[in-house]
């Protein structure tokens, strides 16, 4: 026998099991017949992404189709996950360009620092997430693959919100 148990003296309406059961049944039945369902039927329907969504990377290009990147080395420096591999090259006019530019999407934490730090607005994180692969190697995106991406890029802050500036 329990000692010092607080026993509440409640009115009959609150302790009636019959009423509670019936009201529970009617509640579940209302949900059962309610045609509104909350599930998103994923491959057919998708939820809208935020403009600030940070997903799969994309390298923007100049008009002639080459990457905007000047191999300054800021993005591998700022990258907290150390997922960007950059080997700079230089042509006969002294223009720098990346010989190797690889991003390991598996290591990436999608912080978006690379996009923020890029002086040329070349590397971006994108509003895109469907990037499944069969092998681990497939997640290492080289320059060609990064420039071939077509999805919209992240805006980093909402232009409509002055506080974002």
């Amino acid at each position, binding site marked *: *026998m*329990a*000692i010092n*148990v*607080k*026993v*509440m003296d409640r009115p*009959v309406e609150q*302790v*009636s*099991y*019959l009423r509670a*059961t019936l009201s*529970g*049944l009617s*509640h*579940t*039945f209302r*949900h*059962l*017949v*309610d045609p*509104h*369902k*909350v*599930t998103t*039927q994923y491959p057919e329907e998708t939820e809208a992404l935020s403009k600030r969504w940070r997903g799969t990377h994309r390298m923007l290009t100049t008009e002639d189709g080459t990457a905007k990147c000047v191999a300054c080395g800021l993005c591998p420096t700022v990258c907290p996950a150390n997922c960007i591999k950059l080997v700079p090259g230089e042509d006969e006019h002294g223009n720098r360009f990346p010989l190797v530019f690889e991003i390991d999407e598996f290591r990436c934490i999608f912080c978006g620092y690379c996009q923020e730090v890029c002086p040329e607005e070349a590397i971006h994180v994108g509003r895109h997430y469907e990037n499944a692969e069969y092998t681990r190697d497939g997640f290492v995106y080289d320059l060609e693959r990064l420039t071939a991406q077509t999805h919209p890029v992240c805006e980093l802050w909402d232009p409509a919100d002055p506080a974002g500036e």
Partner: protein
Amino acid sequence: MGPLLMTPITDDPTAFAIASAIKVVVFFGVYLVTVAMLTLAERKVSAWIQDRHGPNRTGPGGLLQPAADGLKNFMKEELSPGAGNSVLFALAPAIAFCTAMLSWAVIPFAAPLPTPWGVVSLAIADLPVGFIFTLAIASLGVFGITLAGWASNNKYSLLGGLRSSAQMISYEIAMGLSIIPVLLLVGNVTMGSIIEQQALGGWNVVNLSVAFLTFLISAFAETNRLPFDLPEAESELVAGYHTEYSSMKFSMFFIAEYANMLTASGLMATLFLGGWDIPFTTWDNTGNPSLLKTALTFGSFATKAGFFLFFYMWIRWTLPRFRYDQLMSLGWRFLLPLSLGYIVLIASVLLGLQSLGIHAGRLQTGVLFVLNVLVLVAVFLIFDRGRLVSPTTSKMSALEMRRLRLQDSAASALSPTPRTEPGMGD
């Protein structure tokens, strides 16, 4: 069709044997497909109640989901506990599965079917012992679950098995007793005469509402469905008696659960809702059997059983599980006395009516109905005040509380060392 053809098929042993074999084969197929569809229906109902869509990718509207589940279970590795009893371990799901299917055998699911070789009764076996057979087989079902729990050599499985045996034995009594008023009214135990009586004298859900309520609650407990699913309480016992089961053996338990539900629904429809009887017409019970009658009465039976199947699922996704002591007190302290008292009441009322010269008919139904309403009101007024199922805190009168407190302080004043509370903190 001449009157010569309206002889029962039992007159011709060969035709009877062939007809029975066909019935068994067809029944087996239909029953298993229904059970498979029930697993889908359960998932759909649960999804709809939770504002989801449920399985809808496999086949049109998810109709092939049970086939996909079955295929998956066939492909899975079959594990068997090393220290367990492997013979009983393999036997247990078979017992659970077979008993669940066997008890259906006596339930007639449509009006007799006329064939060129005689009239075929549409129950697998039209046994003279009728309902007694169902009770006997249902009590064998507990072996499947208890043996599964024991043969697994796993503490959770064992606890689940023990709970199951305690629960099933407790509720079997209430279930068996709740059916006695039906037998008193019918005067026979065959399913055929129970249906016949209801077609003439009104459904037993009106005649014997209290027995119906008791039977309904006991049937939920007997099939281990929520709110009585303590044998597999996943929050306490991992998965209860089938923790160690995998692959098709697990599937067998799963099928057995739904087969039990199907049988219990069929039983409730037969005993209390008039079986295959179509209400408000005597056309289906009188005259020569015909194909149309068989089809329509099957529809009637399927609707009634389907309602109970839906009710099972509806309850499952509404009510939480009982605590163990609540389960036991509901069975022994509420259902058992209620059904015992009800037998005495119905027997004396029937005796009184008969001595007044009132037999089956509208007057008897009316008297019984009024009586049932009175009993139900009394039961819920008296018991539905925190007494039906004990609340989370025990109700103690203020006087009793004071006495206990005084006793406590007196005891601690006498002994120099602080009294240790037995059972608390150690």
